């Protein structure tokens, strides 16, 4: 049997786990591993400029492909820098394996140089973690890490490897396990058939149903099954922020995103629903508003792979634990085989009601903002123009804030995995490295980072990594010269006292900044130039382009839930309330 060092075993095992790209940053404790990387060409390493960005990129690579992302960081500060990235992936259930180097075992506990207890510090942000103590254990641990990360409810797994374990002078036999089995971890593979039957009966009897679909449908590759079921039933579908694209944004049955900044029609329909089919969604506080006033007349069917997501914040009448794709197709099979029929006249009336809500206050059918004029560009119009110019086909990443909500509301995502954003943790700085991850996964696709002048500065150093690795992402800055979402809350709840949301003329010149990194910078201040400049931007296929677009400083994101309240309690504009 072939003898290899721990460093070589690690890289070989990552290749055997089908890793093509490893995002990382070297350092002392990781030197043996980096030497092993140098001496092989099975997987490519992408040198980033900060460990947080390395993990975000690996995370977004996974979001855009469904494969497990992989990142490598050194001990100490490398490990702590990675934490924000790991926590981001954890909150959004993204399958990820993060390798952190550790000081040699003999030094552990001595406060050695660049020592940090990575297993301890990462514990609340991981699905699981391992410290590897012998080179003989590396391959099996990597196999387990990938198995755990990618099955059940996915999530990040940390593998911490002390430097002595990768010692080039200590060679042991290499064998990658063909199968992984853990007696303490057996994810559910099917839904309970009795529960599914009950759910189907309830669903068919509904008079005012809503299908509420979340990130689990994207992660569980259940979009096709969701579409088939929704079409068969002709029921309205709403997606969470994490679920956008699972059901086509341009479909007639789509009533928009729900929640804090959801559409009037989605939130109002939820409130009045008699049956809610929640699938791969977790009744997050940004969706439900006050849980004691949540959808008072609804019976709730809740499908989720993770039992702890069911009845956590909102009681479920029919809980079904299982993978979304399998459960949805079982439901559809029962409906087809039994030739079951919905209450068509009630559903017809329900649609009439929804269409009336749509026409009255919808964000697509009615206008929720004053249109752009001259040098006053509305952020919403930027996203609409982006959708038009990219034909709705781009991979869109975002950071966190108003721009994120505008992108979620106005870029109508038709496909799952097209929309990459930090929904759970809400991590500013995610957008640019996420776009890089998606671009690496889909080299020929158009990849856009929709960001703000605040968020982009949180991982802006990655502009250099874009150059080095030829990742021609496009960066659209909705520049309102303020931390817009915080400012919006200060407007609404703090008497417009703008505490630390303004930059006092300290904003960089983004055009020059782009040029300093060898990229193209564009500044747009007039609405009549917006579309043509954007066409120009996206025509530069092989260049990174930053479009710094000056948008209206005063714009707020609407609708917005009135809190605490029910789903239907919303601000529709600065002056108008439901």
């Amino acid at each position, binding site marked *: 049997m072939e003898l290899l060092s721990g460093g070589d075993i690690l890289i070989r095992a990552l290749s055997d786990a089908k890793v093509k790209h490893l995002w990382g940053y070297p350092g002392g404790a990781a030197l043996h591993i980096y030497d092993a990387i140098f001496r092989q060409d099975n997987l490519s390493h992408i040198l980033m400029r900060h460990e947080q960005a390395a993990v975000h990129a690996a995370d977004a690579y996974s979001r855009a492909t469904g494969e497990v992302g992989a990142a490598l960081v050194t001990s100490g500060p490398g490990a702590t820098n990675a934490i924000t990235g790991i926590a981001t992936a954890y909150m959004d259930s993204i399958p990820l394996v993060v390798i952190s180097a550790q000081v040699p075992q003999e030094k552990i506990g001595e406060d050695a140089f660049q020592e940090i207890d990575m297993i*301890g510090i990462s*514990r609340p942000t991981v699905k699981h*973690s391992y410290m590897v103590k012998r080179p003989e254990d590396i391959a099996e641990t990597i196999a387990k890490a990938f198995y755990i990360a990618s099955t059940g409810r996915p999530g990040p797994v940390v593998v911490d490897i002390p430097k002595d374990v990768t010692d080039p002078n200590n060679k042991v036999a290499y064998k990658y396990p063909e199968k992984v089995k853990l007696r*303490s971890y057996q994810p559910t593979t099917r839904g309970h058939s009795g529960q599914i039957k009950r759910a189907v009966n309830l669903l068919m009897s509904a008079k005012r149903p809503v299908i509420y679909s979340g990130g689990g449908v994207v992660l569980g590759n259940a979009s096709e099954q969701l579409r088939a079921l929704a079409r068969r039933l002709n029921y309205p579908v709403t997606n969470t922020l994490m679920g956008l694209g699972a059901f086509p944004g341009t479909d007639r049955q789509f009533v928009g995103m729900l929640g804090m900044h959801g559409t009037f029609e989605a939130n109002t329909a939820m409130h009045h629903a008699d049956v809610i089919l929640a699938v791969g969604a977790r009744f997050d506080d940004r969706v439900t508003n006050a849980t004691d006033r949540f959808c008072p007349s609804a019976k709730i069917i809740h499908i989720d792979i993770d039992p*702890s997501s069911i009845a956590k914040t909102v009681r479920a009448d029919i809980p079904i634990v299982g993978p979304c794709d399998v459960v949805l197709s079982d439901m559809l099979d029962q409906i087809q085989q039994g030739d079951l029929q919905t209450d068509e006249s009630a559903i017809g009336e329900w649609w009439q009601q929804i269409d009336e809500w749509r026409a009255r206050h919808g964000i697509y059918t009615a206008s929720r903002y004053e249109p752009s004029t001259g040098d006053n560009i509305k952020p919403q119009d930027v996203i609409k123009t982006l959708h038009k110019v990219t034909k709705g086909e781009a991979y869109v990443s975002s950071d966190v804030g108003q721009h994120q909500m505008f992108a979620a509301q106005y870029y109508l995502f038709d496909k799952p995995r097209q929309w990459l954003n930090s929904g759970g943790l809400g991590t500013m700085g995610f957008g640019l490295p996420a776009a890089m991850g998606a671009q690496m996964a889909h080299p020929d696709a158009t990849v856009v980072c929709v960001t703000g002048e605040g968020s982009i500065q949180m991982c802006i150093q990655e502009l250099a990594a874009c150059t080095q690795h030829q990742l021609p992402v496009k960066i659209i800055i909705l520049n309102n010269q303020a931390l817009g979402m915080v400012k919006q809350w200060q407007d609404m709840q703090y008497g417009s006292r703008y505490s630390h949301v303004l930059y006092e003329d300290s904003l960089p010149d983004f055009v020059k900044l782009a040029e300093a990194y060898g990229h193209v910078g564009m500044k747009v201040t007039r609405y009549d130039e917006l579309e043509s400049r954007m066409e120009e931007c996206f025509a530069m296929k092989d260049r990174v382009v930053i479009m710094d677009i000056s948008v209206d400083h005063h714009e707020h994101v609407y609708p917005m839930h009135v809190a605490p309240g029910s789903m239907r309690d919303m601000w529709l504009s600065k002056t108008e309330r439901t």
Partner: protein
Amino acid sequence: MKRLISVLLENEPGSLSRVVGLFSQRGYNIDSLSVAPTEDKTLSRLTLTTVGDDHKIEQITKQLNKLIDVVKVIDLSEGAHIERELMLLKVKAGGAARAEIKRCVDIFRGQIVDVGPTVYVVQIMGESAKLDAFIEALGDAVILEVVRTGVCGLMRGEKSLKI
């Protein structure tokens, strides 16, 4: 309501910290905790007492089950079960108090496991409430130290928590 939760856990480094961490991370209380390896050295058995309504306990058991190192979880308080806790107590035992403490220990079916000229070390075993009652019953006696193991428990009858 007080609940007794029993967990079968992989006997791996760090697995206890994952359980304890889960409780602090999600804002659950641990009133007592006892843990040790079982007859199968690869497994540990952990028993903890906590307080919460049904909804909270349901979440706790679900979240515990979600930990990769957790093999099985059961809420012992749901059914007939036996619970025991051991307490060692060092108490001043001089003069008139000496005989009175001895009587008290006998009533509680405890044992005096160490005797000094002025102190006793007393061992009491039973349900937590009995241990509390013993402390109460000591009245004016001067307690120097108390150490309790935390509760451990088993289901009555033939059902058992096994792989």
